[in-house]
């Protein structure tokens, strides 16, 4: 069974085709790195799988079923916004608020839910620091707390949107390893989007590269090479590989690094917070 399948999917936002007739399939249990330039559709792809973005044509299936909003089979970690990084609440309370946040009425935390929260925090190794203010955690610790909430309800597919943004290399490594461990231990399929391939390259099974509305999935060397990326970027691209580090170059510009710099600017608010606690 495939965990996620896009069949000729076109998604149009603001008059622009973010995805045009994109097709790919992710098998159960895979750890997929989702790459592509800014605006290539990494977030849109995830939101489409969650049923938050309408599909103009084509079909998406999640575990062979059509997309539904609020699908319990999917755990989602959206990109971090500035607001959460400034909070004084404990990480535990933030996770708890998500765990029972879908229910109206006079809801209190029962024992089973408390245990589930502690279990999820243990899975990402965040039980200790979840007692602290989420705003006072380092970027990597915060990201692991946020990751734990996606595990509650035991989803079979995790969509992680840019969890590495504005983290330093050591924290990037801890987040990637945590995700890899979840994939292995809980048999969960993971889509992990990032600006750069290098922090992920040793952890992922395959890479899903987006560009020009297209999506190409495959082993790293089959996708991250000059001919394929030149087609996706619509410009001549060279890939330089040094040991297991990849540099995607357009002329003399490192495309992935520049994309990241651009994003630092866009997310400057959350970035500031992370810097302060890194």
């Amino acid at each position, binding site marked *: 069974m495939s965990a996620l399948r896009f069949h000729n999917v076109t998604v149009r936002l603001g008059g622009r085709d973010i995805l045009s007739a994109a097709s790919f399939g992710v098998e159960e249990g895979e750890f997929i790195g989702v790459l592509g330039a800014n605006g290539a559709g990494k977030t849109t792809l995830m939101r489409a799988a969650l049923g938050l973005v309408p599909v103009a044509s084509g079909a998406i299936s999640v575990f062979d079923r059509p997309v539904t909003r609020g699908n319990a089979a999917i755990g989602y970690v959206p990109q971090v916004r500035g607001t959460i990084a400034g909070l004084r609440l404990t990480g535990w309370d933030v996770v708890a608020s*998500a765990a029972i946040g879908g229910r109206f009425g006079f*809801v209190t935390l029962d024992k089973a839910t408390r245990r589930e929260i502690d279990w999820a925090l243990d899975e990402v190794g965040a039980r200790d620091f979840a007692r602290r203010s989420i705003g006072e955690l380092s970027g990597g610790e915060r990201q692991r707390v946020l990751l734990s909430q996606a595990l509650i309800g035991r989803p079979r597919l995790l969509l992680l949107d840019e969890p590495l943004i504005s983290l330093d290399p050591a924290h990037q490594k801890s987040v990637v390893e945590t995700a890899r461990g979840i994939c292995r231990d809980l048999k969960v399929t993971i889509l992990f989007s990032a600006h750069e391939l290098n922090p992920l390259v040793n952890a992922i099974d395959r890479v899903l590269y987006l560009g020009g509305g297209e999506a190409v999935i495959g082993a790293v060397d089959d996708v991250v090479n000059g001919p394929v990326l030149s087609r996706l970027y619509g410009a001549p691209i060279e890939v330089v590989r040094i040991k297991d580090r990849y540099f995607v170059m357009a002329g003399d510009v490192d495309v992935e690094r520049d994309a990241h710099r651009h994003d630092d600017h866009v997310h400057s608010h959350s970035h500031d917070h992370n810097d302060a606690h890194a």
Partner: protein
Amino acid sequence: MLEYDFMRTAFAASGMAAILAGTVGFFLVLRGQTFAGHALSHVGFTGATGAILFGLSPLAGLVGFTFVSGIGMGLFGEKLAERDVAIGMMLSLALGLGLLFLHFYTTGATQAAALLFGNVLGVDNSALTTLALLSIGSLVALAYIARPLIFASLQPDLAEARGVPIRFVSVGFLAIVGIAVAECAQIVGVLLVFTLMVGPAAAAQNFSRRLIGGVLLAGGLALAEAWGGLTLAYYTDWPTSFWITALSGLVYFASLAVRFRAR
């Protein structure tokens, strides 16, 4: 002091308004919507002066206007930048209209001062009943939407993905804010609503890292400040609203000191 009937009424009225304001205010601060609360109080001024002009009860005008405006504000949408400007415009427009109504209602100088700065000693028994019913109704409604509201406030993207009806929750919440503002305005006046709605709530978030504890603390602080203000006013004969703002400011700045010392 409690042997006087008007003091007992004042304690009851300010207590109910304060608990509601502190609790609702906690969520207002959590959501970063304190400006909306401020603007709603100005709209309430228009409603109250309009009601006086047309011979209706000012409390009815106050509640009606803030409630409907809260819903309208919620429907404006989620984009913060747009919302701030829209709310600011509504605020000016509302105060302008209120001024016009006062202009036509020429004998209203004391009435205007009561609206702007509150007159807790002037609450009568029928108003007290209305305040009690509104408080209970609002707190029940708030408790009912509390969980989705907290989730949507902390992590809107995730809440949306999990199927939380974001729009319904935010409109419902601002309707409750409208009622809390109206109650609060009855005690400390439309210009000083911030002092009971935002002061205790912001202080509670500085004192506490917990969610439920923070909500209860916000309500408790608001109650203590309202009753403390009333007591001080009784013994000094200075205005109640002054004492409430003084206590609220004191507690808030103390909470800032605690927060930054803890770092």
